[in-house]
């Protein structure tokens, strides 16, 4: 009886057919947009991906390890990157781990030194000059990622940042050796494209290691 207050919400709607059709159409449109974004992103970043993968391979050959990190959904994407490099479906397993994997470490650092330092403190204690720091953010401006890249740069690690929108602060910071930007303003579409980007990085690193392209240096 309050329909006059909310004329746009129809509490008496009973036929789900129209909604189901709308939902399916919407899913198709979003899937097509995701597909386009993933393809154009990989095309646009091809040169940067080659360069980043070549340097990553050099670090792995030198005994380096990959540290991946991000917040929220991006932390799960970081875990997926670590898992892909460490336990690949094919090719050579490489040392990689996520810096968000251990709740004791994460909550201790967040509680005692502040959330903005949860990743940088771990890099300070674990990472060295041959290692790789890879951070994922959709905004590109997460403060704890920026701090982590500063720390990684200080110790000479290779820094790789994935960002959306225009790259955010990550693109301006001067601490990210390879800033891979997905040009979109939808968090979900950015994350999907970032998964495609990290998968391509992994593929290229594996190819580099097999082809021994790094012996040239």
């Amino acid at each position, binding site marked *: 009886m309050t329909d006059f207050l909310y004329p746009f919400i129809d509490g008496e709607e009973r036929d789900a057919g129209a909604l189901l059709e709308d939902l399916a159409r919407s899913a198709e449109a979003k*899937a097509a947009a995701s597909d386009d974004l993933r393809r154009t992103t990989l095309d646009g970043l091809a040169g940067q991906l080659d360069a980043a993968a070549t340097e990553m391979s050099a670090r792995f050959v030198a005994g380096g390890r990959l540290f991946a990190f991000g917040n929220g959904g991006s932390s799960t994407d970081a875990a997926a990157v670590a898992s892909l490099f460490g336990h690949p479906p094919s090719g050579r397993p490489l040392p990689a781990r996520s810096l968000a994997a251990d709740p004791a470490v994460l909550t201790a650092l967040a509680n005692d030194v502040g959330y903005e330092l949860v990743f940088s403190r771990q890099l300070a204690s674990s990472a060295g000059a041959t290692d790789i720091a890879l951070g994922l953010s959709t905004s590109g401006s997460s403060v704890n990622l920026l701090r982590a890249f500063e720390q990684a740069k200080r110790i000479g690690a290779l820094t790789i940042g994935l960002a959306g929108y225009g790259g955010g602060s990550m693109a301006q910071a001067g601490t990210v050796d390879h800033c891979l930007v997905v040009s979109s303003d939808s968090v979900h579409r950015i994350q999907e494209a970032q998964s495609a980007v990290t998968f391509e990085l992994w593929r290229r690193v594996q190819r580099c290691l097999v082809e021994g392209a790094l012996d040239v240096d």
Partner: protein
Amino acid sequence: MSQWLDDQPVAVVSAELAFAALALARRFADGATLWCWSPGAPEHAQHVAVEFVHPVIVGTRALPAVAVADGDATATLRTMARAGDALVVVSSGDAAVSGLLKRTEAWGMTTIWMGCGPRPEASSADHLLWLSDDPQARHDGRLVLGYHLLWELTHVCFEHPGLLREPSATEGPTCTTCSDEGRMGEVVTSQGDDATVRTACGIETVTTLLVGPVAPGDLVLLHAGTAITVVDG
């Protein structure tokens, strides 16, 4: 040409996603918790859960969702899940998943199985959302797209409150679910020729004369107060 669903018609998966999203929204409207499990790749379950718990779109309703740890999902869900809850499994085809999904029927859960790679039987879950036959879809963004879409579509359903009530909802003294023949039950205790079993409608006492001795945890098919088959769980 879509790379997303290169090996099957896009329309089919989209329609399945739409049905699953509406079913999930209806469960949430009734107070359900969404349990998320991705054996071997816990990050996917965590990603699904965080989408619902902490939506990226400001003003979108936060919904109860929990990632189940990789270990013994059966033991965890047996104690934690309530009848009416929902379970989304993100995984490739897997015997452990099929086993758990038989059991969740006895617990009264609505199940969604999303994955890629070799396709399981359609009857394995209430909603089977198979995104691609290509196992690579797990790594290259297509699987992530699948669960993002499930979240996005579920929230669209909340804009249609009139459709959030189950058309065949339980009304009156009889449970429509339980009037079906061959309901699944999980044995809680057994004594002599009787057993206490958990079903979608609660705890019931049934006779086990036809199947012989049963043990706690056994899955049994029930009909008219009688266990008629022991099911491999």
